[in-house]
């Protein structure tokens, strides 16, 4: 059936995330929290996460433009980003965040800039992967309801 096909597709997508380490076990934890009474919990969380983290990233990118950079503020934002990324299981993003924090701590401006670019790339990639996944899931559940 089509729904079954989609279902398999969704499962495959999901598995690929784990294989590529885009997601880690914390994501599974979130999935476990999902239930009948809140079937879209994970998606809601991710929507929130994506929204907040893009704001963080933009703030960071802006902060990089000022001279001298306000590294304390930046580190604080990165810290927040770290917490939320870890909580949703955004593995690669989390790694980039940590890397950026490290580099920032060392005071190397150029490397920090480069690292932030990497972070942004990772984030965009993450978003690009997860959004279709959730859309598919949503569509599938709607379809299944019918």
């Amino acid at each position: 059936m089509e729904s079954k096909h989609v279902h398999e597709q969704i499962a495959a997508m999901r598995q690929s995330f784990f294989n590529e380490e885009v997601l880690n076990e914390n994501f599974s934890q979130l999935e476990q929290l999902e239930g009948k009474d809140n079937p879209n919990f994970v998606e809601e969380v991710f929507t929130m996460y994506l929204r907040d983290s893009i704001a963080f990233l933009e703030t960071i990118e802006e902060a990089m433009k000022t001279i001298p950079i306000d590294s304390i503020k930046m580190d604080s934002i990165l810290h927040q980003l770290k917490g939320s990324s870890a909580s949703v299981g955004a593995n690669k993003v989390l790694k980039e965040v940590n890397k950026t924090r490290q580099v920032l701590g060392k005071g190397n401006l150029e490397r920090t800039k480069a690292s932030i670019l990497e972070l942004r790339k990772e984030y965009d990639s993450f978003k690009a992967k997860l959004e279709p996944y959730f859309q598919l899931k949503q569509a599938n559940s709607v379809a299944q309801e019918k």
Partner: protein
Amino acid sequence: MNSSSGKSYMSTASSSVIWKAGGDVVADQFPAGLRVLVVDDDPTCLMILEKMLKACQYNVTKCNRAETALSMLRENRNGFDIIISDVHMPDMDGFKLLEHIGLEMDLPVIMMSADDGKNVVMKGVTHGACDYLIKPVRIEALKNIWQHVVRKRKNEWKDFEQSGSVEEGDRQPKQSEDADYSSSANEGNWKSSKRRKDDEDENDERDDTSTLKKPRVVWSVELHQQFVAAVNQLGIEKAVPKKILELMNVPGLTRENVASHLQKYRLYLRRLSGVSQHPSNLNNSFMNPQDATFGPLDLQALAATGQLPAQSLATLQAAGLGRSTAKSGIPMPLVDQRNIFSFENPKLRFGEAQQHVNNNKQMNLLHGIPTTMEPKQLAGLHHTAQSMGNMNMPVLSHGSQSSQNNPLLMQMAQPQARGQMLNDSTVGLAPRLLSPMGQPMLSNGMATNVSTRNGVPENIRAPSYNPVSQTSSMLNFPMNHISELPGNSFPLVSTPGISSLAPKVAFQEDVNSEIKGSVGFMPSYDIFNDLNQHKPQNWELQNVGMMFNTSQHSNSLRGNLDHTQSVLVQQGFSTGQNRNSTVISKAMFSAGDSTGHVNAQNGNQHLNSLFVDNTVRVKSERVADAAPANLYPDHFGQEDLMSALLKQQDVIAPAENNDFDFDGYSIDNIPV
């Protein structure tokens, strides 16, 4: 929330009621229905946490701002059982919130952060957090948070029991009240648990619900104002829980409640004064908990002796304070003001002792305090002890003056100790100095500390007082060392340490060299190091009674420090009962950062145990979870001094302080 609980302080009742009302949650279903307040500015994390907590069947309230959370708690003190808070929040630092909660509501707080750095975790400990979770938080970690609620209640019960039988009477009515609105199951548990608590602590554990049902006094603004009014009326020196209780005349309020609140209040005041360098109040003058490192004894004694110029004292304090704050900022639990005073007395002695020491005069600081100090020390000690003993007694009475003395003492202790001590550096001398100072101080300090801790004086006797001989430790801790000189080094250590703790920071550098001669300010590492790891540890232990065995070397110093800190804190650090802990912790931090805290924590725990056994008997005021300055059981080793001190300290009600969660009041938070 708990409309049923009429009594504000019957949080347990209300919680049990709530559980019941909440959804037919019977006691058996515990921990289901646990009312959790989660605070985090990150909406994603907040959402996830809420979901997880709900999955654990807890009753969750989420909040994204600390201020909101605080006002929620204030409006409904009995509305929550436990709080989970993030560390980094934009409107208020998580630790600050932690302090507020601990001070005002005394609820268990779990800190949470993506940061897993040791320092941050330590900070949580010292600020009184009952646990620390690293993000990403797993649901498994949340499943067990109820243990903190139970533990707290259990400890509160213990305090109750320890504090006295008077409360039993109070409790009975409470129990009956609970019976009214709590379900039979809960009520039965509660009552029975209460009664059992009185009889046996173990029973409480059996009924987890019962342990939770401990009535909790909620210090509302009005209640606190009444309290403050009573305290002011009595005068901070004379403010004993009993009298405060009488003045307040609040039905259902127990002496223990007042005592523990008083401790907190003192800590708070101390911190206030520490910040502002307020010499006038004992409460305040006792160095900020953080600075508590100053052996209050020392300073006071020194101040008393007049040898320590106020300015120097201030400097010392400042130095110590500065250091301490820098260190770990562990807010030392408010040492009973009394204790501080006691310390002052000893300090006076110490100052004198120091003076004498230089002159090779042995002050009998420790009166009749039998210390196992080394012969030299002993000799000196005895003399001093005797003189001190005598002195101590009177010194104790100085309490009132202590505030002023303290600063002086501190300074005196330091400068004097240093100069004189150093020169002498001889062990013998040191011991003497210490002994006279230490002992009396110790006793005083101990007493004071004791209040917090339990008769630290005992420690003074600490046999291992080697460091004392080392001179440095001894001197520094006029209080602690002195008594401990004999070997326990505790007395000396404790005092010096304590006092030195605060100043330590500053002094450490100086003290090291001076340690020999220096006053026991450097309880922390320096002394120890100098002392050759010997006694400082000992005295620390001694004070603490437990942990530090004479064998501790510099390395152990750290550990000792931790312990000592707590010990010191208790003993010598009268500066603020909490100070001691902070002092120690500070010392620890200074010394070994991490090692310190761990030790401190362990130390605290150990100390508690040790106290019981050791002379150090420092009364452990509630040992904050944070560790340093754990309260030690009230064991007063020193009979004479201790009893004298204890009397003064009666207010302190060490027993209750065991649960000192937070180190001190946030300065701005104390509603007065």
